[in-house]
């Protein structure tokens, strides 16, 4: 079973967000970059577990600049066998999906795995676009993934519940909480990661469909109004008359 796990590199979850150049660019100063949690904790770890159980290989792919290599090595340290870096600034989701689909075509992977979304762009776009570009079934927001030969049984989140579905390889899947438990790379993994192949490939030429023209921070919250704990009627009145939410 050959897995391709798509990993993105994002600002750490506690990053204070700010912008530069007239609010047109994300301020990367002092930002610590990490693997996108859904890609790392769920998609990558589950692919490694399934490889350990059934044999096969796990390749990770990232579309990004050379600065990302340190973070890509972490995925190798956790247990991926090799890595591909498409040497390009990640453009919009369509651009990234086109790069991943192009690389996936030559690799004959059984399962292409994504995280449910990046914590930076929050698009939930790249997985579905890649599936369509490859003409493959797509199971999104998967919280469990089991494989028996070439058939996967997947639990996915739906509005107000869960669904159990079956799909045959090859397919595309995006991972949400529940699929696996995060793994911390050990010393041995970190040593081995240095020797594992990290192949840099050139991007294919595609145009972006969208452009970010400006960023904006949410308006500062006005000070919190404190209510006397013995006067909950006042809180209810404020929610009704002032906030108008009940």
């Amino acid at each position, binding site marked *: 079973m050959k897995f391709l796990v798509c990993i993105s590199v994002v600002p750490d979850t506690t990053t204070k967000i700010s912008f530069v150049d007239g609010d047109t660019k994300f301020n990367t100063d002092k930002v610590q970059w990490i693997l996108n949690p859904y890609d790392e904790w769920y998609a990558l770890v589950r692919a490694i577990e399934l490889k350990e159980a059934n044999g096969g290989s796990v390749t990770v792919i990232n579309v990004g600049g050379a600065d990302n290599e340190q973070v890509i090595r972490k995925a190798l340290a956790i247990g991926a066998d090799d890595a591909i870096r498409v040497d390009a600034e990640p453009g919009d989701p369509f651009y990234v999906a086109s790069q991943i689909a192009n690389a996936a075509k030559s690799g004959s992977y059984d399962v292409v795995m994504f995280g449910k979304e990046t914590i930076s762009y929050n698009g939930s776009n790249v997985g*579905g676009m890649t599936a*369509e*570009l490859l003409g493959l079934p797509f199971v999104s927001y998967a919280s469990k993934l089991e494989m028996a030969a070439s058939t996967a049984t997947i639990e996915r989140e739906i509005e107000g*519940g869960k669904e159990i579905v079956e799909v045959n390889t090859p397919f595309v899947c995006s991972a949400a909480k529940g699929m696996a438990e995060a793994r911390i790379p050990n010393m041995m993994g970190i040593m081995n990661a240095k020797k594992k192949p990290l192949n840099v490939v050139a991007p294919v030429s595609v145009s972006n469909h969208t452009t970010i023209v400006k960023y904006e921070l949410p308006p500062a919250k006005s000070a919190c109004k404190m209510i006397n704990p013995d006067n909950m*009627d006042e809180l*209810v009145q404020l929610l009704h008359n002032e906030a108008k939410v009940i």
Partner: protein
Amino acid sequence: MAVLFYAEASNGKVKKNGLEAATYASKVAASLGTQAIGIAVGDIADSELSALGAYGASKVVKVADAKLENFDSQAYAKVIAEVAKSTGSDVVIISQSLSGKAIAPRLSVKLDAGLVSGAVALPDTSNGFVVKKAAFSGKAFAHVRIDTANKIVAVVPNSTGVEKKEGTAAVETASVALSDADFGVKVKEVKRQSGNVLPLPEAELVVSAGRGMKGPENWGIVEDLANVLGATTACSRPVADIGWRPHHEHVGQTGVAIRPNLYIAIGISGAIQHLAGVNQSKVIVVINKDAEAPFFKAADYGVLGDAFEVIPKLTEAFKKFKASQH
């Protein structure tokens, strides 16, 4: 030229996020000087669909193929793409629901259409077509311009609202040729949560509690409060991880991201990863016994006190209020 919206439905009824998509589409259509057309999938009564006229639809196209009973992003995207083409629609509006998140990206490839997901406002069409979307887990917004002729906007549920006026829409039935190859995903079992409150992503009122509740046996007062309000319950991550509450209630960076009108947080400290999933709520009430709890900084209303004393009082106050409304 037309604006197509996906009238997401379940059990024969157009869902609230489908009505929201209709409202959004009709406003976009008005600003572009064209009409809003609905696409509905499944066995839905014509009367239910013609009622979409009140939300601004001039026409609704229904595709009711028995094969579409269960959701498959491949087949649904194909159906919506075909209807977009046959109706000459160059803009498609869809809810950023779980199924919308699977359909929209596929549709964008099929229609060569730029996609902005996570939209929280109407597009600015004064200079191109620019959509405001939530980014960085609610810590910022990005304004994204769609540069392609065809455009898709996926709208965050409960963000732009539903507006009902008068009117009825014409209902047309269409069929789309579907083959087995369009159905790669076989649905084996559907497990719905019991209860009649809205699921978290769509909920308008949410009562959420954290480790401050001390143990699962104490959740009764939280549930009483939620019941009086007709609110959906949620929780912080540690509470779901230790099994005090079911996983689907976990909100935050790693759990569900929500945008209710009212979020009541009880005994939750307000860690940045928790806020990431709830900071888009319109109004936040925080009940905590620690004046230093970071959550107060993100709150509109705060109650400094012991949850075990405050919640029953709040429940009583809501009861009194509800009674006075009748």
